[in-house]
């Protein structure tokens, strides 16, 4: 028991002097909590399934199979020097992570309702822990991608050095959507039903199974800007450029990156605003 009250931390709660941005330092102090929550999700997800972790592989591989069938075999999509399997699996790996975090975050706050009503912690830990859980699947798909590249003996160019940046961007973009949807679902429960639709629609609105040029060349400029308003469009372009070289992302891809930055900061503000009523409305 410490007898030095001066050194203890001081907590001040004052609704008049409310902060409008999440306390990042505090969040860092709670890192054990999101690791343990992520670990719980992972343990529980595969606790009683027969195939366990193999499920992580089945979903992206099944998507790959259908993409090869439709876009390569049926539509004969041209991906230049890059083998189609490699090309589309790169897109699928980023997209699978995005859709996982987005979907899991949707109900995350409501699902953790019992905890939120009984104990204090920065609520941002909940969507964050979903982004951490997803990293396991993401790492597995990236590993498969690596194997595929060796299999096709495809060696990447110098742009590979920027790969961590685009992986980071994928994570931030997914987290942004996760934070928005987790906070919004508290007020608007309907959003739970909108999320699967957005994920399905997004899979085709994002250059996952086809090269961006194919679309950009055939639509007017304003429509291209609209296309890149989808933040994942720019991210997938950049991700693929790092892996396979070729020409860098279209200049309009910066629209995507700007959208991510704005939405990410916005999500933190909005989450903070919603945080204080969470325990009362769940």
């Amino acid at each position, binding site marked *: 028991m410490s007898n030095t009250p001066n050194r203890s931390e001081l907590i001040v709660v004052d609704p008049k002097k409310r902060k409008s941005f999440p306390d990042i330092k505090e969040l860092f102090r709670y890192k054990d909590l999101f690791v343990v929550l992520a670990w719980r999700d992972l343990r*529980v997800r595969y606790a009683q399934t027969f195939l366990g972790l193999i499920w992580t592989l089945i979903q992206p591989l099944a998507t790959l199979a259908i993409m090869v069938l439709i876009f390569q075999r049926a539509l004969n999509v041209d991906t230049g020097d890059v083998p189609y399997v490699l090309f589309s699996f790169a897109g699928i790996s980023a997209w699978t992570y995005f859709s996982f975090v987005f979907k899991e975050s949707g109900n995350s706050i409501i699902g953790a309702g019992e905890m939120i009503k009984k104990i*204090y*912690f920065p609520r941002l830990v909940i969507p964050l822990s979903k982004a951490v859980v997803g990293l396991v699947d993401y790492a597995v798909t990236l590993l498969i991608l690596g194997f595929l590249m060796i299999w096709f003996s495809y060696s990447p160019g110098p742009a590979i050095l920027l790969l961590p940046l685009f992986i980071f961007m994928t994570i931030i973009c997914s987290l942004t959507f996760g934070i928005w949807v987790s906070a919004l679902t508290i*007020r608007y429960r309907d959003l739970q039903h909108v999320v699967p639709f957005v994920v399905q629609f997004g899979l085709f609105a994002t250059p996952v199974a086809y090269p961006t040029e194919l679309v950009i060349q055939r639509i007017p400029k304003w429509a291209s800007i609209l296309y890149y308003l989808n933040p994942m469009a720019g991210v997938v372009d950049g991700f693929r450029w790092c892996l396979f070289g070729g020409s860098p992302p279209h200049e309009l891809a910066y629209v995507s990156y700007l959208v991510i930055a704005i939405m990410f900061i916005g999500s933190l503000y909005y989450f903070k605003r919603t945080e204080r009523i969470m325990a*009362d409305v769940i």
Partner: protein
Amino acid sequence: MDNYTAIKIDQIGKEYVIGGSVSGDLRESFNHRFKSLFTTEKKDRFWALKDISFNVEQGDAIGIIGRNGAGKSTLLKILSRITEPTVGRFEMKGRVSSLLEVGTGFHPELSGRENVFLNGTILGMKRKEIASKFDQIVDFSGVAKFIDTPIKHYSSGMKVRLAFAVAAHLDPEILIIDEVLAVGDAEFQQKCLGKMGEVTREGRTVLFVSHNLEAITDLCNKGIFLKNGLIESTGTAIDSVNSYMRSFHESSEVLQRTFPIKKGSGYITQARFVTDKKTPNFEYNDKISFRFEYLLNEDLPDAELNVDLCRGTEKISMYFGREMRPGEKSIKGLNTVELQLPVGILNKGNYYLNLALHDNYRQFLDIQTEALSFNILNKHPRYADHMIKDPGVLNLDPFGKRAE
């Protein structure tokens, strides 16, 4: 804030909006926005807490008492930072742990061991800290043999013991604790009280909400009596308990109480008077009947609802569920129990009922203290000719005979 103050609370208030559209679906929300352009709608608001100010010195153990709905839980939630006050501010110095429930975040699929780490982290312990205290925690819980079994195979008693063992090994400077003692068996409750006593003797600051007035006077040095969201009185624990008891002589209004949904095997859903009266105020010879409902989520045929009839801090009589519905077993789903008090037996005064739902193994599933309260307005005519102020609690028939 000086060095010896642990908590300084300044004019705290919490307002809730009843039936407001804080949460809803999209259509509702748009409708609401649209309507509010043309009408100025008045929402029902109420202050769950108002004007709460007090200081807590380091090492104080403060008992917070009051009837259901007086704002005790809201106050603890605010001080635990689960919800924000609408107005006012407070400062707290020191490492805070709040225990509003035992076993927060427990997951049935995970083993006892994994749940200790999970629950400990949620309560604010570091991983290393839990690892170093792990053996002590398991020892204290008494479930060492099953520590690697998923807790879905545990009995409810085992779960509670494990959860409390984790909580007991927190090392806070300020401990905020809600009626966690209302679960588990009598032995377990004793263990909890013992641990609480230890914590207060070690000089930690404790805020404690309980209906167990004896525990309050035993464990706490100061008391706060809340009534309808306001501080009614503060002082020593004994003073506060006394003024709380005096408040029972005031009239009550409620004829029916519906209790919030609870998770778990079962809970008490409703308690009400069966009467034509508008308020629960009865003549000495009125028939007084009650109807209780409880919901079981599992097949627990031997579960029963016991009712204590109380006045002040005394239990006057106890009724068992099996007496109220003889020969009938509890069913999974909604169960109804009726109780009629013997006519003409209670004297003038204020009475209340405590309800407890037990399962087959004598574990409490749910407790509702002061579920209903009522007044007997007048004395039995037997006393009418006398100037006796307090004829006692019971009006038992005299059967004396002349001494030879």
